[in-house]
């Protein structure tokens, strides 16, 4: 009897501080998920320096589906579309993503088409691929901050629409909580 193939989780880690703390944290996440048949591909964005999107739309009209900037941003886009769940992990920054994470997220537009369609009455871009990963946004805050939390949840929800995620969840984690444990719980509750 064949075992079910592991589901692939792509983690875009936008936390500011680089170094062993984050590496350990991603390893801890790997450990927390290993018993649940998840396979983790992680990117520590603070160390990768993903170039910012130039807004040139070459990925739509010149080199369809591929960003014209030849750096790790391309590899990230490929990993994202080949994953089952995309995790956006970030300190909540003005209600949204920290700049390191947003650089990678802005570089995901090659994954959709330039064409427009209506989704729930609003104009959005059409799918390029048949299937897309589900989306889990994990925002970190020192403590409760209702305005930032509300905006963060809205951003994750709207990213889910624009990136055609079949399932979307936003999780806010306060200082002192176990981040890998919170992610593992969210994955098993919503995306298993």
């Amino acid at each position, binding site marked *: 009897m064949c075992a079910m193939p592991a589901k692939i989780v792509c983690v875009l880690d936008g936390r500011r501080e680089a170094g062993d703390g984050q590496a350990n944290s991603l390893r801890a996440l790997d450990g927390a998920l290993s018993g649940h048949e998840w396979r983790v591909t992680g990117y520590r964005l603070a160390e990768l320096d993903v170039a910012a999107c130039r807004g040139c739309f070459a990925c739509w009209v010149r080199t369809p589906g591929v960003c014209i900037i030849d750096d790790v941003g391309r590899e990230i886009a490929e990993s994202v579309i080949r994953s089952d769940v995309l995790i956006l992990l970030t300190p909540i920054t003005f209600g949204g993503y920290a700049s390191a994470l947003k650089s990678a997220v802005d570089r995901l537009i090659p994954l959709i088409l330039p064409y427009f369609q209506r989704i729930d009455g609003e104009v959005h871009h059409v799918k390029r691929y048949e299937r897309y990963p589900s989306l889990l946004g994990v925002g970190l805050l020192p403590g409760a901050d209702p*305005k930032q939390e509300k905006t963060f949840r809205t951003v994750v929800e709207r990213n889910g629409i624009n990136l055609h995620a079949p399932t979307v969840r936003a999780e806010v984690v306060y200082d002192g909580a176990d981040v890998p444990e919170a992610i593992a719980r969210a994955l098993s509750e919503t995306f298993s």
Partner: protein
Amino acid sequence: MSRRALVLIGSPKGQTGSNSARYAQAIAARLEEAGWRLDWIHVHEAVTTEGGAGELVAKVDASDLVLFVAPLYVDGLPAPAIRAFESIADARGVAAKDARKPKLAVLIHCGFVEPAQNATAIEMCRLFAAAADLEWFGALAFGGGGIPRKRGALALRAAADALAAGEPISEEIRRAAGRPVMPRWLYGLGGNQMWRTQAKKRYGVAPKELRARPYEPR
């Protein structure tokens, strides 16, 4: 003494040629007529140039009004704009409580027909203002990709007049700007044709090729 405004262009495309620059010019021209002194910073350049972030913070500190103009990128602000905001908030959040409090006015535009799709990005700017100890001075949202005509142009002019007079952008002006410029079906039809034409004429890429799937899951 003349009042000072700092214009922050949040489009990676820069201070010339971008829609952000065109919107900003429309407001800046009115400010200059009214005697304001203007400084311009392209945030993408500021955050990637040695010493650029420090100069950005110093110019914010020295301004009476900061006008931030940017396109919507994936439901939020372009990454370099967030990076610039992080630098400003880090510096002002700890040091400027006793300093002067510049005002922040914002204009966000997007390639969708509905200006309302900019709402989340505007809320982020409002949260940035709070974090950086800036006074919120209102916002405008435009959809439709280009510089507005008719009703939108009137709203843009009204916002420029208000700012030039030292007044905030009112909710009434924001509402006037915030209606779709054309029916959604028409926008979709025209937009889809525009992409096909641009790909073919500029790069010789056929419509079928535009749907390439280079990262098709294995």
